[in-house]
């Protein structure tokens, strides 16, 4: 899904090629190949949607609970009884936590790399950030479970002291395998993708804009505020959506760190909850045919959620384009 996002902005060259009158063999082959790829993508997406929908309908029809509001997952029971409320909540909450942590940090790193760091430093740090993206998610999961979880207890105790009265940050001292921990871990995981896209966008800020700002006596921070940030805004949003896509669908790291349960805990610091992808990974092994269809139904909801998020991001970007100076 994220791949076609980055492809679509340049249909112009293809249209130009089609309009040319000289049709050489190479042109025709290439045009057909690219047309074929485009169609194949649509067919694959449609096939996935149809497959998910058919299997999902089977499960939802047989479901004794309410698919949207039931707090349980007994899909293998007879009759099956399951609902996605907890999964939807957990997926959204953990991803939102991840975004809240990752986006500001990523923008900071990107600005540092593109505008503050000397070139000698920026290049290796850039590699280091990209390297984070090459680590398999199960490794993040193990790191989270073995290293991060025990060390977050102290921080959570402190959060409980300061903000415990809100209920959202209440903490009982049990092992910190909660949605908050998952959010922190996901933030680390989506940091590289947001950082590198954002950095590329910031680097493309027209020199003329920046020099104009400098000429008007702007400080470096003012240059960034007046030229780089407005120019890069839609890029930052796109980058965040790429990261969000990864956070929504992350499976192994979540399954390794979270202590899943089918209860919604008001506190994000206490264990419990679950996400779509984690639940599918956990339940699939022992699922019967109905259990499998139920998991597919939950997968369909994740599919729709991701489509929705991407669509919303598109709308925001389209609306902001005129102000951003991206056409300059």
């Amino acid at each position, binding site marked *: 899904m994220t791949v076609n996002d980055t492809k679509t902005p340049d249909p112009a060259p293809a249209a130009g090629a089609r309009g040319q009158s000289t049709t050489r063999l190479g042109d025709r082959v290439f045009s057909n190949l690219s047309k074929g790829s485009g169609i194949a993508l649509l067919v694959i997406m449609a096939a996935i949607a149809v497959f998910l929908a058919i299997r999902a309908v089977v499960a939802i029809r047989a479901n004794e609970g309410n698919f949207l509001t039931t707090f349980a997952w007994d899909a293998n029971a*007879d009759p099956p009884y399951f609902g996605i409320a907890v999964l939807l909540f957990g997926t959204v909450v953990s991803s939102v936590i991840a975004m809240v942590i990752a986006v500001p940090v990523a923008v900071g790193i990107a600005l540092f790399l593109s505008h503050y760091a000397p070139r000698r430093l920026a290049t290796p740090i850039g590699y280091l950030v990209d390297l984070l993206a*090459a680590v398999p998610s199960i490794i993040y999961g193990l790191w989270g479970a073995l290293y991060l979880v025990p060390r977050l207890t102290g921080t959570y105790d402190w959060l409980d002291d300061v903000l415990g009265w809100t209920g959202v940050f209440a903490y009982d001292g049990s092992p910190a*395998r909660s949605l908050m921990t998952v959010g922190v871990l996901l933030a680390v995981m989506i940091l590289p993708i947001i950082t590198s896209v954002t950095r590329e966008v910031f680097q493309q800020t027209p020199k003329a804009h920046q020099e104009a700002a400098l000429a008007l006596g702007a400080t470096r921070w003012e240059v960034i505020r007046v030229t780089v940030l407005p120019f890069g805004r839609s890029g930052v949003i796109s980058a965040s959506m790429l990261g969000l896509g990864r956070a929504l669908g992350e499976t192994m790291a979540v399954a390794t760190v979270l202590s899943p*349960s089918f209860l919604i805990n008001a506190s994000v610091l206490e264990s419990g909850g679950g996400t779509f992808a984690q639940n599918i990974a956990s339940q699939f092994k*022992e*699922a019967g*045919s109905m259990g499998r269809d139920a998991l597919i139904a939950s997968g369909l909801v994740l599919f729709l959620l991701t489509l929705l998020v991407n669509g919303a991001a598109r709308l925001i970007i389209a609306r902001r384009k005129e102000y951003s100076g991206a056409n300059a």
Partner: protein
Amino acid sequence: MKLSRTRGRRALGLGAALAAGALVLTACGTDDNSGLPGAVDFTVDDLDCGPGGTLLASGSSAQANAMEVWVNTYQANCEGSQINYKATGSGAGVQEFLQGTTAFAGSDSLLSPAEVEESRRVCRDGGRAIHLPMAAGPIALGYNVPGVPDLALDASTLARIFDSAITRWDDPAIAALNPGVDLPDLAITPFHRSDGSGTTENLTTYLHESAPEDWPHEPDKAWRGRGGQSADGSSGLVGMVQQNEGAIAYFELSYAHQNGLDTVNVDTGADEPVEATVDNSSNAIGQAEVVGEDGDLALELDYATREEGVYPIVLVTYEIVCDGGNDPATLDLTRAFLDYTAGEEGQRALAEIDYAPISDDIIEQVRNRVEAMD
């Protein structure tokens, strides 16, 4: 992502990625997760080999270690045979078997009547699926309480601990079962499996049968208890117990041994609390009754036993086959392989890897059933 990047940069990035990959590989390499003790001898003297060929099977991960030894032994002694057992979990294994893609399934729980009916579609000559008990293993209760190497609990206390009704290790109910033991003032964190599991089903069957008032939840592969935390897979639970003081969880005995965890002695009402050992769970299998009919060898354990040295929380893991075989092409090989696993050599191999052999009179029936597959 990398919109403008020179070739040199790309090469450097690739090198870095390779280095990271190498790190990952070494990390996996040092972690022996096969679950087998260092040197298992795969050679046996007299093994009746079937015809060559490939046999596909899948299912329970609880019997994966036993299968590993059996498969390796069989293949080492019978050239040209390849047996491929995928530890996909009982549910997935049964699914594949019912679709006719595998010759047999490994399962820790019995098929439902509906599944037995469904099996008629893939079984030859109007046959149906039957259960062959092939190995058993004690489900150990591993705990992490510093300074308490020996701990006795009974079914009622266990049920209340896992149901979050007892929350401190110095609870009077625990102290009463452990006179003279200095129990710390420490919170109990019970851990259960987050994935569906035959181990969960066997433990909760024990709790439900032995202490129905303290464990009112129906036994199931999914966890029904209240509170506590969960983790993925037996190895996940082991990690949690090692990591957290005050933790208690359940897994097959081999996991506890490999990781040096203390295990609970179960107070069954016998004079001495019973330790989770291979011998003690063999004793439980000896008291099991065959409840299957018409050649089916499904077992029922006596959870209420008070006899000396009988460890009641035992997982029996079955091979599920068609009574007349399903695919004629693999029937002979299936029969030869299962004949070996149910044979003396196959059963003897179990004790070395923390499984309990099936008792003599029952395994005799299993052998007869296997030989009658035709």
